[in-house]
């Protein structure tokens, strides 16, 4: 069956977004040790630029065919409610804003690693960068809308939430070589992270 480029782009974009959502949802639960985290659609009116008093952390994953920017927008006070137990503290107030930021930065790192591993499992090699922290007032410096004539772009906005904590994930996907990505449509990505976490690989 032949597809037009537009149809291919639509299918690949949907698959990419599904893989990203699946990977990060599992990671937020394992990183926070909180199985109540759920993924839902974000408010379409959410404004990634005007997010006053709140912070974000971002990471880039790329190959010659693809570039993904994952950005997590969060409130330090929300994150402290989840992260203080990981830090071995009795109360959220015992964590600093920077420690809450580090918690999300590490979540970025884990999510990107999970994506890279999942893509590797379906024969597609990706490299990951280092996570960065930013105050959202600085966000105008992030060129999240960059596009060239050769790049197709899609994006996704969703929300992770549990009882006390909400954060918004923005995924920006730049597709540089659509044809090389098309085979991922036939691949099932299995998220067997629980099994992987139970293994130690002696070399």
């Amino acid at each position: 069956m032949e597809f037009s480029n537009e149809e291919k782009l639509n299918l690949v974009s949907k698959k990419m977004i599904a893989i990203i959502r699946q990977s990060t949802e599992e990671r937020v639960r394992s990183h926070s040790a909180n199985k109540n985290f759920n993924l839902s659609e974000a408010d379409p009116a959410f404004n990634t630029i005007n997010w006053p008093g709140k912070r974000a952390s971002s990471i880039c994953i790329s190959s010659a065919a693809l570039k993904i920017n994952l950005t997590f927008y969060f409130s330090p006070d929300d994150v402290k409610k989840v992260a203080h137990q990981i830090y071995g503290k009795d109360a959220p107030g015992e964590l600093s804003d920077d420690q809450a930021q580090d918690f999300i930065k590490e979540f970025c790192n884990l999510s990107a690693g999970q994506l890279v591993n999942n893509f590797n499992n379906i024969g597609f090699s990706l490299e990951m960068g280092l996570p960065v922290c930013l105050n959202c007032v600085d966000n105008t410096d992030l060129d999240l809308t960059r596009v060239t004539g050769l790049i197709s772009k899609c994006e996704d906005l969703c929300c992770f939430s549990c009882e006390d904590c909400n954060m918004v994930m923005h995924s920006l996907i730049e597709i540089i070589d659509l044809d090389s990505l098309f085979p991922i449509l036939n691949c099932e990505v299995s998220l067997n992270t629980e099994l992987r976490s139970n293994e130690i690989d002696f070399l």
Partner: protein
Amino acid sequence: MAKILLIDDSETARVRVKIDLNSAGHVVLEAENGIQGLEVLNTNKDIQLIISDVNMPGMDGLTMCEKITTDNKYKKVPIVMLTTQCDEGMKIRGKKNGVVAWINKPHKTQLLISGISQILAR
């Protein structure tokens, strides 16, 4: 009980591992990247094991391993990589440079403790 050098740029990751290692009676020294890791190693000659992340600013974990294995003083110190990445090419590069085990983040407490015990008992 062993003296263990833990290298990760994330404080969250270090705290999580340190709590587990301390609970098993180990003493933990910390560093934020490969450069700091080498400095701590040079000033603490009795370190018995190194646990390191791969993806870090300044100097990554695998480059640090290469530097360690070129120094005769430290090349017998076993290294465990604790990382989000499980690429086979990275594991091969690590194995050539003193890495004896590879654990995926986020770790399971019992897995980490028992793995460390096995390595220290060798």
